[in-house]
């Protein structure tokens, strides 16, 4: 809703948020599959996920797990092989619908330097989206407001500068300003702080979190940094080889992980004194060669140590593929060991 003052907008959002008791999802993915190389590479292999209004979901995993491909497909940069994605109830399609979608969903890229055209001034970088969507209002004022809201003050000082004159943290703020200037409902952040200095990290994360509080924007943050999830996420979804293997509220997943992969990931975070380090053997796997059965079984400590066989589900791990239940409870795990222990109870 451009044209209103910032404070007015914030008030409207807060009223809306308090009125919506049942938050409908901002984005809903159902059985999404994205493939490359004519089906050879299953980058995203049946993923279902819902993100509510004002919710922050961290999509965690290593390189090759498909998390970046997944968010690119939400914004329509990658075509779906199967499944569907709806944003605010409308399906992600092609043509004119896609353009409207790209005002409601914005993406923040990992490399702030590469994402800014070196020949354009900061003003033009932020104004680009406004011009594409023909947003009404006095353009310079909108741009200055967006920059100020992203922490670049006084905004006028930055308008005529060029990307190379700014630091990494400032460039990322410009990108965030450009994204938020369109008042999106959903922000897709691809490793938003990975290439920034450690001391700047907190500021940028705090900025993103502040937009959730003031504008009610939802965020899907793709990262391999579990600390980021702890810092800002309401829910965490762990991906492995194109599939979500565990999802749930952040406190539950990070304090009491159920899936062996999540447990291993947490155990190797440097300050995790409470867990014994489980360094997985082997390389991060290749999405063009997804193992049969549970895709994690070749690296799973339970299988490797023989415990899976001892407890009787080793064959299932090796032979039976499994997914998360789409309408399960809040904390879901795709693991035979967990499924069996639940059924035992």
């Amino acid at each position: 809703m451009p044209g209103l003052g910032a404070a007015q907008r914030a008030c409207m959002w807060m009223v809306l948020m308090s009125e919506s008791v049942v938050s409908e999802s901002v984005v809903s993915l159902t059985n999404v599959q994205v493939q490359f190389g004519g089906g050879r590479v299953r980058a995203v292999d049946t993923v279902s996920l819902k993100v509510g209004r004002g919710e922050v979901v961290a999509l965690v995993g290593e390189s090759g797990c498909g998390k970046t491909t997944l968010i690119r497909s939400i914004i329509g940069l990658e075509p779906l092989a199967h499944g569907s994605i709806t944003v605010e109830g409308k399906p992600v399609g092609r043509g004119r619908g896609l353009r409207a979608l790209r005002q409601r969903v914005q993406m923040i890229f990992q490399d702030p330097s590469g994402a800014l055209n070196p020949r354009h001034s900061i003003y033009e970088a932020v104004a680009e989206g406004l011009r594409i969507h023909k947003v009404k209002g006095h353009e310079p004022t909108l741009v200055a407001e967006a920059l100020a809201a992203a922490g670049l003050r006084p905004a006028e000082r930055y308008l005529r500068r060029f990307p190379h004159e700014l630091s990494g943290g400032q460039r990322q703020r410009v990108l965030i300003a450009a994204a938020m200037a369109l008042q999106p409902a959903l922000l897709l952040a691809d490793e938003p702080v990975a290439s920034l200095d450690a001391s700047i990290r907190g500021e940028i994360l705090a900025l993103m979190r502040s937009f959730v509080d003031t504008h009610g924007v939802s965020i899907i943050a793709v990262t391999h940094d579990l600390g980021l999830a702890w810092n800002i996420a309401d829910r965490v979804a762990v991906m492995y080889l194109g599939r979500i293997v565990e999802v749930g509220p952040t406190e539950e997943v990070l304090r009491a992980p159920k899936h062996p992969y999540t447990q291993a990931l947490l155990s190797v975070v440097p300050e995790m004194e409470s867990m014994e380090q489980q360094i997985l053997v082997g390389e991060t796997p290749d999405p063009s060669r997804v193992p049969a059965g549970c895709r994690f079984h070749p690296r799973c400590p339970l299988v490797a140590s023989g415990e899976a066989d001892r407890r009787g589900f080793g064959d299932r791990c090796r032979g039976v593929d499994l997914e998360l239940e789409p309408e399960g409870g809040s904390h879901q795990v795709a693991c035979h060991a967990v499924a069996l222990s639940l059924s035992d109870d």
Partner: protein
Amino acid sequence: MTDLQVPRSGRAVAWDRRRASLAGAWRGLGNDRLALLGFIVLLLFTLMAFAAPLLSDKSSLSAANTGDNPVWSPPSWEFLFGTDHLGHSVAAQFLWGSRISLFVGLMATLLQVGIGSLVGLTAGFFGGWVDAVLMRITDWFLVIPFLPLAIVLAAVLQRGLWTIILVIGVTSWPSTARLLRAQVLTVRQRLYVDRARSLGAGRIHVMRRHVLPNVTPLILASTTLAVPISILTETTLSFLGLGDPTATSWGGMLNAAKDNSAISGGRWWAYMPPGLGIVFVVLAVTLFGRALEEILDPRLRER
């Protein structure tokens, strides 16, 4: 407009940016001594070409007026560059010939860059089968050997300046086309183009705001570097006798010198001026063009 004021409009910011980058380019050019030298030499030759009617009378070159002139006379106060086998003033020919050489060089370059840009940009923009078809046509022209084509065309078409221009243009555009297409494809892969797409930009917006500004400097740079090649090519064609018989360029002068045994006869004033003229002009444009390329392509500059 001070630094701390909100600008009047987006357009004002864009113009500020353009003015600043032009100023920066000018300063960069000033810093490069060789480029400055090239620029000055080029300017001198251009002025000289324009001023030819003022400096010498064209009618002095017609046969009727030269009956009295001494033949093959070495440089003297009366004839600054001496006279040729027909008694024509070499200096006058040099002046008038410069106009032909520069004109043909410029026109041929414009034709070549024009066709090349159109083909390259179209292929890069559309991709798919359009790209494939255009590239096969480009390959076809790339493969045709220059000299045989030139001779054939000169024989088939009327001999004249525009024939030469056509010949050079038609044989040289493929390399420009390929260069530009590659640049378009490169820019389209960049992360900021992805960002523009995710903002909702269509292909036209991407071309206008991101691709063209990154491709135009390349066009400009390849233009300046194509001019000397065109001049040399015209010289070659004229030297081989395919040029316009009525308008003698520097190459034509060289051809005449050869045909009339000026070289073997030791009459250096008949071929040195045009020869050196070509060398200087080509060198000047190359130096200037190289500096222009460096200024306009930020990657080549040390930040």
